[in-house]
């Protein structure tokens, strides 16, 4: 990375638009989950404005659904904070994994492109950078697509929700899982990577079963990272 290819760190309108279009097909499915959230939140008695405001400002799918599970006349502040933090903790990892590229940007751009970081656009962006292609357009443009469809979906759910009460019957609950798996399978494959994946999978499962809820992503990713640091001696740089 010392011989910097400046094209890699570019971020302009056409790259953002291209990122938007590339993530748009997946984002359409995200609309359905936005709608499911809108409907569920309405049934819990949240006001229309606060439901849409939450999707727009927090933009964190799983954490928003988890909040609804805790919803009552009152919510314990500490439990709510801890749940939201644990579920959102994977964003910390995403920021860290993108840092070798993000550090080339000015601080304003660096934190700006992370505003809408989410599973799908992060995965696309990582894959682009690993393949020597510019990824910030995917991160920001893709994030805009995901955000736009998530918020529109929430709005649809609040006003016309009853049409989409069972997205899992159509297999829609598997969109993100299948997407992330496709990204993983499409990435680098080597015996060393296989060992890393195995360690990550096993430790995330152990955390899933025996450690507090929502700790599995953090535990699995850190364990995989550590094995990757000590395992294998060959120099495999991109």
């Amino acid at each position: 990375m010392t011989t910097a290819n400046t094209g890699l760190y570019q971020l302009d309108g056409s790259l953002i638009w291209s990122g938007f279009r590339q993530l748009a097909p997946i984002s359409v499915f995200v609309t359905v989950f936005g709608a499911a959230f809108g409907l569920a939140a309405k049934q819990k008695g949240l006001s229309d404005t606060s439901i849409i405001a939450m999707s727009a400002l927090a933009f964190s799918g799983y954490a928003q659904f988890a909040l609804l599970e805790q919803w009552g006349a009152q919510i314990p502040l500490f439990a709510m904070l801890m749940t939201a933090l644990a579920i959102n903790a994977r964003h910390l990892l995403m920021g860290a994994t993108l840092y070798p590229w993000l550090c080339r940007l000015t601080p304003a751009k660096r934190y700006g492109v992370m505003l809408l970081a989410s599973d799908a656009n992060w995965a696309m962006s990582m894959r682009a950078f690993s393949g020597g292609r510019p990824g910030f357009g995917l991160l920001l443009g893709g994030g805009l697509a995901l955000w736009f469809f998530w918020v529109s979906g929430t709005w649809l759910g609040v006003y016309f929700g009853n049409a989409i009460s069972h997205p899992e019957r159509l297999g829609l609950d598997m969109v993100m899982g299948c997407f992330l798996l496709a990204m993983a399978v499409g990435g680098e494959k080597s015996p060393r990577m296989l060992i890393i994946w195995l360690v990550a999978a096993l430790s995330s499962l152990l955390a899933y079963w025996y450690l507090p809820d929502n700790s599995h992503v953090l535990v699995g990713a850190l364990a995989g990272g550590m094995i990757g640091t000590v395992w294998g001696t060959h120099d495999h740089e991109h």
Partner: protein
Amino acid sequence: MNIETTGTGTLAIVLIMALVALATRWGGVYLMSFVPINYRVKRFIQAMSGSVLVALLAPMAVAGDNAARVALLTTAVIMLLLKKPLPAIAGGMVAAAVMRYF
């Protein structure tokens, strides 16, 4: 301490959720700015980026229903054969829908 889920309480909850999400989106980047990026750190980051995906997926496959497992398997097979994400994702979802229909 409890928050009321009416009026300003709801507003506070929305703001807290937004701030937590923002803090995690920015936090990883901020913390990394104190870490010198050397060879070992690069290897750690590279291994971790694949591991995040696997750590998200493993419990989905193991703790999910059969439809979830078939969906993931279908996606993996199509991705290996065609190397195109969209048909792979579509195939996975169709597989899950078919499994749940019967």
